[in-house]
């Protein structure tokens, strides 16, 4: 197998507080290959965004990487200092956030924002960058790009702004794009446009994508593989079809079953009892054990086996007859 673009090994993030050390990310391991879309799902507080922010070096103190390694294109990046990391950000890693209005500078024309990014990271002249800015906007499907480079962010609608953000993330030709809830603030029809755009651009350029979202439907349609997170840990990792149709981890199973679906009709929805533990009260053993229908003594004592490759982090994974 080819060298993965991004490789996260046993990553942990810690936040020291007055009430003890919180671990929003705890021993997470996954790879993303070139041209692959890895979906990261989980509920609020599962640590999915924290893991993404750790990769791009945007953890706000006192949060910090406490253990593990992050490798990008064969280089270790978790120990890079400010300047080196800044050169990487934007150049090698593009970022798309949830709210397109707060990720654009309201005082600069969007053309200038694109040009600035390209001049910072690419060895090209200003006139070349200006040409490329128009091309970048055309590529993300903004009509009348040659005129629109002179517009300010407030002159665009939400969907168009998110397209601009994607153009910005991709203009320095990064090898990895981290998309953190890129469509959560958008309407259904615009969401479909943005997801289709992300998929197309990544396929054409062979960019690796980390797609962080809580929407299983988006994951099912866009991702190649999916990582399910629970209380800072990886619960399950595998090809998207396997994880959604035949989940092995009881949490993934519960999550799928509680999503309203046409095929389930009006019957009662499945409920996972309780709620995700607070970070200062993660139970011993498997973090899911107080809510798990298959819990046994072993789950309360030893942490579940860690996910490596395609598997569920569970002592007693659900068996499926059609396991592929």
């Amino acid at each position, binding site marked *: 197998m080819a060298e993965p673009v991004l490789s996260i090994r046993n990553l942990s993030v810690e936040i020291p507080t007055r009430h003890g050390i919180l671990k929003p990310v705890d021993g997470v391991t996954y790879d993303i290959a070139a041209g692959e879309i890895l979906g990261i799902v989980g509920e609020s507080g599962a640590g999915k965004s924290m893991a993404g922010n750790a990769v791009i070096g945007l953890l706000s103190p006192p949060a910090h990487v406490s253990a593990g390694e992050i490798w990008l294109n064969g280089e270790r990046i978790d120990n890079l200092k400010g300047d080196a990391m800044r050169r990487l950000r934007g150049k090698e890693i593009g970022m798309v956030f949830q709210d397109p209005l707060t990720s654009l500078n309201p005082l600069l024309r969007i053309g200038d924002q694109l040009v600035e990014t390209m001049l910072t990271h690419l060895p090209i002249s200003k006139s070349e960058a200006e040409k490329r800015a128009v091309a970048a906007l055309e590529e993300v499907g903004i009509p009348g790009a040659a005129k629109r480079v002179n517009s300010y962010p407030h002159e665009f609608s939400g969907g168009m702004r998110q397209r601009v953000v994607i153009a910005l993330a991709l203009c320095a030709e990064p090898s990895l794009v981290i998309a953190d809830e890129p469509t959560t603030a958008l309407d259904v029809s615009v969401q479909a446009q943005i*997801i289709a755009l992300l998929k197309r651009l990544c396929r054409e350029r062979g960019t690796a994508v980390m797609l962080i979202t809580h929407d299983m439907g988006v994951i*099912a349609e866009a991702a190649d593989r999916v990582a399910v997170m629970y209380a800072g840990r990886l619960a399950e990792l595998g090809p998207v079809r396997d994880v959604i149709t035949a989940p092995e981890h009881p949490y993934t199973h519960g999550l799928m079953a509680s999503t309203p679906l046409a095929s389930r009709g009006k019957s009662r929805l499945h409920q996972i009892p309780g709620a995700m533990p607070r970070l200062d009260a993660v139970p011993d053993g498997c973090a899911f054990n107080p809510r798990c229908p298959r819990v046994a003594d072993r789950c309360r004592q030893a942490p579940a086996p860690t996910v490596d490759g395609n598997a569920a982090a569970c002592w007693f994974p659900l068996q499926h007859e059609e396991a592929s």
Partner: protein
Amino acid sequence: MALVSVKNLSRVFDVSKPWLNRVIEREPKAFLTAVSEVDFEVEPQTTYALVGESGSGKSTIGRMLVGLLNPSEGNVEIEGVDLANEKDAAKVDAIRSDIQMIFQDPYASLNPRWRVRDIIVEPVAARGGKTDGLAERLLEQVGLSVKDAGKFPHEFSGGQRQRICIARALASEPRLIVCDEPTSALDVSVQSQVLNLMSDLKDNFGLTYVLITHDLTVVQHMADRIGVLYLGRLVEEGAPDELFERPKHPYTQMLLEAAPRMDGFGREVAPPEGEIPDPINPPPGCAFHPRCPLAGDICRQERPEMRRIGTTRVACHMAEG
């Protein structure tokens, strides 16, 4: 008889610039039509869902149903009483206690300085009713503990707060609850808990819901009848099976096609084109015509009337049964 009857309902907002700017820039007044000639009826003990994207006017309709906004034109009748125009104060008062609302953000809709007990009994206490043990009883009914009554809202998670909002809505024993995006701020596993609770309460108390949401999966699960809104206009109304199986309006078709599906692995659909037009200057004729694959000349000139096709109602010149 229908519990809620909405006739020819419109709401226009004045979004003009201040007077001096208008004079200097020689601009006329600007009006935004948030809701335009909407008709529908809600039968007792059913769930009527209003779906639409942002700017479709669904929340504005919800606020007019409970009387937080007055209609610009048309009227809302609840149990035959028009709240905005009824002169008999006693009648209005009686109807008001039959209507409650649940909001989207359970963090913003609970007073952080009040104890849960006081929050829940407020709708009854404000009318001078008896509140002994009421909060405790309601808390048990929504799946919380009796001793939670003495706590403050910040001690609860989002899902638990939404349960408190539901308990408060139930306190005055309403017949109609308008739910504006009740689960949009919640995670999937918590959403299923709240939706199940809402279904149980509906059966136990004989409630009627008007459910306002953009989430089609929730609508399909909960609704007995669905109204689809586009740019303030009702474009299609029907029973969930009919609407999801055989959508008649091109906008409904587009919306259903664009919604991500759990079984849509690697699905490649041509994403919908265009965006919702500016509601201050809506397109003439049918509001959807600039994005519609079926649009003809008549669509650009005449606004389509609501027509009945089978059990559904559709506002489209081109739709066929």
